[in-house]
């Protein structure tokens, strides 16, 4: 999930829907001030029953946890289910960048990726919606009318690669359906 201006409330509303035994890992890029000292992760932790982690480099990705990209680092997904961090140049004037996370997730995981673009005054994340969709993933944008800053979800929708535009509570419920289906598949 990626958010920027106004993204926090939307994220909190989505995470509120996740039960403590949620079957998927969630990776979050929120545009932060470079000097943010894990305060975003701490604030987010107060809104959800799942553990919120600001990961270190090469940290293993576990189900039922929320990983937030640290300020000043891009967060990428590796095929071996670990997180890599990078201090590469900013992308869309942002580090962390949503595009960097989504592209790497699409490459590492392909189909089972759900990419969500939330409120923000930027176009970060729009480009990688196509990569997620082409790899067989599901793409969701926050319904622009429900976003504090509709620019970012609007830019994503304009690419034509967004499957669904939903309000934050609806996104939370959608995840629940997909999460339980995922758990059923694994049990079967």
């Amino acid at each position: 999930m990626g958010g920027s201006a106004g993204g926090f409330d939307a994220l909190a509303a989505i995470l509120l829907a996740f039960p403590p035994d949620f079957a998927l890992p969630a990776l979050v890029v929120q545009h932060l001030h470079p000097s943010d000292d894990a305060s975003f992760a701490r604030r987010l932790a107060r809104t959800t029953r799942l553990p919120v982690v600001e990961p270190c480099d090469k940290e293993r990705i576990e189900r039922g946890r929320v990983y937030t990209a640290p300020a000043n680092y891009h967060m990428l997904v590796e095929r071996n289910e670990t997180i890599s961090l990078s201090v590469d140049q900013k992308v869309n004037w942002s580090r962390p960048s949503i595009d960097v996370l989504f592209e790497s997730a699409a490459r590492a995981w392909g189909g089972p990726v759900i990419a969500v673009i939330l409120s923000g005054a930027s176009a970060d994340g729009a480009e990688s919606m196509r990569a997620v969709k082409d790899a067989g993933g599901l793409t969701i944008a926050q319904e622009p009318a429900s976003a504090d800053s509709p620019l970012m979800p609007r830019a994503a929708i304009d690419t034509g690669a967004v499957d669904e535009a939903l309000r934050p509570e609806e996104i939370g419920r959608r995840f629940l359906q997909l999460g339980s289906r995922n758990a059923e598949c694994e049990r079967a």
Partner: protein
Amino acid sequence: MGKPDIEDIEIDLLLEAIYWRYGYDFRSYARASIERRTRQFLSVAGCASVSEMIPRVLRDEEFFSKLARYFSISVTQMFRDPLVYRAVREKVIPLLRTWPHFKVWHAGCATGEEVYSLAIVLKEENLYQRATIYATDFNDEALEQAREGVYEMEKMKEATHNYQQAGGKASFSEYYHARCGAAAMDAALKERIVFSSHNLASDSAFGEMHLVLCRNVLIYFNAELQNRALGLFTESLVHGGFLCLGTKEGLRFPEVNDQYETVDGKARIYKKKDVP
């Protein structure tokens, strides 16, 4: 799934080609970043596929050096993470002071901003003349820039801010002068710095170091190469010597971790134990 799998194979072949032709080993780099950089270079070079790049990499040295530049782009800044420099001042400097002469290895110094930052700290603590600083990188171009020590003037604003946050004792403008619209670091800061080429993926340890800094370099390596590099640092450090990593990097490997105690967890400063 067809296409991504093919590109995966192509990238493997590209990295093999680079290794066999030029000896640079990117095979043990963190894969996601290498893939990202390869794809970026693809569009810059006007190639339709990674396969198309391979013969050019093999036969055209100029093409390869352009690609190598892409693979080793390093983004750094003066006094990056000010809290780290504050911790160095408070927790490392007092111990460095107990040695009549000490050696520092700044591994993966890139374009040198953080080496000059450390030199400034040592100057202000009246320890600079007792130090020898080895600043190394595998990227010769970056190393040349580090040696010159000339940076964009607009970066000095952020540098000044970081310097103050890091507990700087003077005015940051004392450490550089304007030259053709750029900021040239004071020559006196370079006196005790030795810049040299060193590749953490293939070269061996440096002897008898009292402080090793390697920040935001290991994040570009896979676990195996991280372990190798940490082994080099451990081998290089004297007992009681310090290791300083990036703020999101840690000593995750038991064989390394057991040999250190934590000096400052947040700043990722560790001390090699006195007794092996």
